């Protein structure tokens, strides 16, 4: 489990590791999220200070991108493709069945914090749809049963 309430020193160490780059803000946000499972609110002023930009700008960038979370996700993250190539092979039905089986909504997390379900627009598995991703691992020819089994293991 990631440390979900890291200290300022721990956050600053992660920020410092990316400062050598040109345009380091996205690498910093990715790094924090990989390390802590989300980008803690306490990181925003620290990033702003390190980059000499406003807190509002950091917040603006973070909130622009779908990937970055301000709060930790569930223990498993399921992403289900909603895009056209998957729609053509039952993607809509898959998503409805998976959401019903897990008992949550898009962007929701199941009771007890087990599974977060998010939409994704294309995983590049478009000739083998419908496609999904569980905890960063792609799944082709996905079914609700396979998805549920994957997060129940």
């Amino acid at each position, binding site marked *: 489990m990631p440390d979900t309430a890291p200290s300022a020193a721990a956050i600053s160490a992660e920020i410092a590791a990316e400062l050598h*780059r*040109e*345009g*380091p*803000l*996205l*690498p910093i*946000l*990715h790094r924090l999220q990989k390390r802590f499972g989300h980008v803690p609110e306490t990181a925003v002023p620290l990033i702003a200070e390190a*980059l000499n930009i406003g807190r509002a700008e950091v917040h*603006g*960038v973070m909130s*622009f*991108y*779908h*990937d*970055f979370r301000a709060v930790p996700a569930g223990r498993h993250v399921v992403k289900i*493709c909603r*895009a*056209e*190539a*998957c*729609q*053509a*092979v039952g993607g809509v039905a898959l998503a409805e069945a998976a959401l019903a089986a897990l008992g949550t909504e898009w962007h929701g997390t199941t009771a007890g914090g087990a599974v977060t379900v998010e939409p*994704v*627009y*294309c*995983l*590049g*598995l*478009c*000739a*083998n*749809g419908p*496609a999904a*991703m569980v905890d*960063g*691992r*792609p*799944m*082709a*020819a996905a079914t609700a049963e396979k998805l549920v089994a994957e997060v129940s293991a």
Partner: protein
Amino acid sequence: MKLFLSADAVAKALGVEDVAAALEAEARARGMALELIRVGSRGMAWLEPLAEVERDGVRHAFGPITVADVPALLDGALAGHGPTEDIPFLASQTRLTFARVGVIDPLSLADYEAHGGLVGLRKALADPAAIVQTVIDSGLRGRGGAGFPTGIKWQTVAAAGAGRKYIVCNADEGDSGTFADRMLIEGDPFSLIEGMAIAGLGVGAETGFIYIRSEYPDAIATLTRAVEIAREAGLLGGDVLGSGRGFDIEIREGAGAYVCGEETSLLNSLEGKRGVVRAKPPLPALEGLFGKPTVVNNVISLATVPVIFEKGPEHYASFGLGRSKGTMPLQIAGNVRFGGLYETAFGLPLGEIVERIAGGTRTGRAVKAVQVGGPLGAYFAPQQFDTPFGYEEFDGAGGLIGHAGIVVFDDSTDMLAQARFAFEFCAVESCGKCTPCRVGAVRGVEVIDRMAAGEDMRDLVEDLCETMRDGSLCALGGFTPYPVLSALTRFPDDFAPHKEAAE
């Protein structure tokens, strides 16, 4: 036994790692010598996970392979598909950009060189002043979708003074139905690295960035390792292949924003800003990344550059149709029997691709519509199947080829729902900078919902689409009218007022 096993994301998504583990275990139990080589995908998606057994120097195809097939495969008793390269889907292709994909170990520089790799870069280094003209002569156009002549873009950057410049590779392949960039990076990453190095030498840039989407974790891992290997081998760094010229590459991960596939949004994202679109001019070629002259090219454009130098620009330009020179990696997707990557010269009629190559729908029902060019591409009806695959030809038919994704839908598809999705997608992914896109997409969803309820809103949809097309800053808002209006005009029955009464 020498065995090649796909390690493409598609194969992994279908459980190939379990097959690989079973192969190793079974071979060990039998005391059998097994040389297992992990390769990219041959692009025959319906055969994935694909295993190939080499016999007398010829690879024979077996797939889709499961754990249960492993003993029979090692016995030589499993029914297969014969020599891989005789399979019609593969045999009828012209593979230039994808010649090595699925064939070589993607992370073996020796394998890469044994299959023609680095020949192009060495030729380019021998006469750097001729690089830009060679690319112009090849007729290569941007494979990301816009189709702008690659050599002309390079010429603009090369002529833009002597200061700091950048090569930016757009690997933010967000269009549904496309996976060529992913397959190329997972199957032959050195060709992209070589192409970027040639671009850098040609325009006088020493720094390259590859902006790759976070939805492609396997491609990111392969590419990251490939760049390290290239650096260790002196292909990248301060002294490219001993030439005294420097070029290096940094990989940057996107963060789930479709609009960052638009080049100016991508540049803002690389700079650490919100991925909002910039107004053009200034062109990125003159004021791009951090305000410096920048080449922004798609993965396939850059990965095609080495073969242009290896075989000569005339060779590349000898393929194709009209002003669409060379080959295009078609990505056949959605509801098809034979999906995957099909590289061929421009000019094939759409119907031949859908009916003959793709074999029609997987469900066995009639084809209703084919969306070409991603979520911003038009839906084509079977009546338009004689349209030849080319930039101008598709433009003339009211569509675009984009990044050459071809998504097939059967006759159970509701085109009103597809039009609604096009607006919805635009609303979700709009960067918010310009009003026609930001507001228009939301109003579009509402109007389509009213049509679904039985109102005749056709004129309003057309008016809204005109505003979005003419008033948006980039292709997201500007091209969303393609899927919407093509669905509306080519499939009017799905939008008929009170259609439930007619059923």
